[in-house]
């Protein structure tokens, strides 16, 4: 096994080691506090340390670093970053070992209660009680949580046996409990698909995967390797309309739905099951940011950031799934490293004010990161990441500014489940940028400006 930084044996800082440290007075001070010790927090900490920040503290609410990766025992991680196919646990270990190797301080079992605009953090831990920390900079790396049954409002009783996919994953992989025997999965997000395969491996019967959309919100390869490989049926444009059972769930009613998302009469059928698993999307976990008054985007659910991942509050940065939900952890690591570098620069140089331009979504384009771009003299490229609101076939992504196309990119297929990434030359950016998507890409290049104008008018109105 190859590591980027090979740790010496037994270098893992145990809780005891990290608890005998210089932070013994209350309130304390730190250069950089990172909230969340998952993949985003660890990558941000490592990159800040490598960019000259010594006084870093990671606050993690679980008993060890790693975040959601600790429960991801499946493979498919690290293909971009390490050019090898790792499990989530192996991917997390590479980072947590590097955190230990670089002697970055972290508190585990520590929950952050609040942060403020002037960088005061209040946290609690069983070991220290209430901790108050004044930080020069803060990186928000809290990740996301799952959408729940309440958010879906499915009628019926409230029996045991209804889990979100990540909770079921945690029970099975971390705590060693099988959640049920006959399982229906609602939603075809990646965690649900991965869990379908794991349930089969653990001897459960997956009765069906039910998806309200006409396509899966998960990756195509997961449909293949988690469902098709194991002959698990997936029903599109179908949903759960009722839950049966009093103590434990005994079955669910499925109905097909029409184009207005209403159940079609006569298509109801009862499927007997003892477990319903929900895999219906993720929401950035931003309660701390909201309470601190950080501006959030309604499209991404995360903070509004500039191209250095700084929020509208100077010195508070955000990265990873708390900013927007990513498809791949490899991209989370890259983004978090950039946020770590920005935080290091902020600590070393103070706040640097630049004029900013905005990135504006055209029709069919969902949340974009970053929402603002600083007009700096730097030469590094700017990467725009966004999701579409619907599925496009033979689509052309057009980035334009001042009614001039800056860049076009043709894609055979774009789905909301897949993040689009476009890299722009910073030197070309001088005014607001529009992102548009056109279906059935035009072959006549001369049409581009007029068509673009039409789209721009729609945006302005």
């Amino acid at each position, binding site marked *: *096994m190859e590591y980027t930084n090979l740790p010496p044996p037994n270098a893992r800082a145990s809780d005891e080691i990290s608890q005998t440290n210089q932070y013994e007075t209350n309130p304390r001070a730190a250069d950089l506090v990172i909230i969340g010790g998952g993949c985003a927090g660890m990558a941000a900490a490592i990159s800040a340390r490598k960019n000259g920040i010594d006084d870093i503290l990671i606050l993690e609410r679980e*008993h*060890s670093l790693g975040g959601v990766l*600790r429960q991801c*025992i*499946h*493979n498919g991680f690290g*293909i*971009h970053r390490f050019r090898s*196919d790792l*499990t989530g*646990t*192996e991917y*997390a*270990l590479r980072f947590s070992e590097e955190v230990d190797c670089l002697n970055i301080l972290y508190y585990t079992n520590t929950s952050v209660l609040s942060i403020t605009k002037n960088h005061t953090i209040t946290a609690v831990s069983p070991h220290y009680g209430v901790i108050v920390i004044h930080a020069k900079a803060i990186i928000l790396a809290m990740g996301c949580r799952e959408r729940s049954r309440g958010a879906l409002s499915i009628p019926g009783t409230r029996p045991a046996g209804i889990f979100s996919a990540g909770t079921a994953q945690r029970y*099975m*992989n*971390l*705590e*060693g409990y099988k959640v049920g025997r006959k399982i229906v999965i609602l939603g075809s997000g990646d965690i649900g698909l991965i869990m379908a395969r*794991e349930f*089969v*491996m*653990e001897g459960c019967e997956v009765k069906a995967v039910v998806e309200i959309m006409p396509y899966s919100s998960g*990756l*195509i*390869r997961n*449909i*293949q*390797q988690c469902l*098709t*490989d194991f002959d698990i049926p997936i029903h599109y444009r179908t949903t759960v309309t009722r839950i049966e059972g009093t103590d434990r769930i005994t079955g669910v009613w499925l109905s097909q739905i029409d184009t207005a998302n209403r159940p079609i009469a006569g298509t109801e059928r009862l499927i007997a099951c003892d477990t319903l698993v929900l895999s219906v999307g993720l929401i950035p976990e931003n309660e701390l940011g909201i309470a601190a008054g950080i501006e959030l985007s309604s499209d991404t659910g995360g903070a509004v950031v500039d191209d250095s991942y700084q929020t509208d509050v100077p010195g508070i940065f955000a990265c990873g799934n708390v900013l927007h939900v990513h*498809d*791949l952890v490899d991209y989370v690591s890259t983004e978090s490293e950039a946020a770590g570098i920005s935080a290091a620069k902020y600590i070393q140089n103070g706040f640097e004010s630049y004029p900013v331009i905005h990135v504006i979504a055209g029709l069919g384009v969902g949340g974009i990161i970053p929402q603002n771009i600083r007009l700096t003299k730097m030469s590094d490229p700017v990467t725009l990441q966004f999701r579409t609101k619907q599925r496009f076939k033979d689509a052309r992504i057009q980035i334009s500014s001042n009614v001039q196309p800056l860049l076009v990119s043709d894609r055979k297929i774009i789905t909301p489940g*897949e993040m689009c990434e476009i890299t722009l030359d910073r030197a070309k950016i001088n005014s607001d940028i529009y992102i548009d998507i056109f279906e059935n890409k035009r072959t006549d290049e001369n049409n581009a400006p007029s068509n673009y104008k039409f789209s721009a008018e729609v945006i302005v109105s």
Partner: protein
Amino acid sequence: MIKDFVCINCPLGCQLTINYDGEKILAVAGNACPRGIAYVKQEFICPLRVLTTLIRVKGTDRPIGVRSDKPIPLQKLLICKDYLNHVEAIAPVQCGDILVKNICSTGANIVAASNSESKTLY
């Protein structure tokens, strides 16, 4: 004859189409990179998958994630899992430790994918 595949090498999930005659692949279309061709050639003869699952650890109350160190035939996944249901690792286990050699004669070893935890910490 025509057959469709989905490449599982990376998140792109290229939809591959092959034209074949008997057991011979005549043409491959739809791949964005050379890995797609290698994948579909293997997939056509015998699909291979990496096994990732859990096994018990003696001396702890938590399972540990394990993986095969190379892909194994798809139809042997559940056979290997049945075998692993009767295997218990002994704590402490370090990530990368070989727990089962040449599982079910596939030529692949089962290795630990994380470090075992010695006690309940929640």
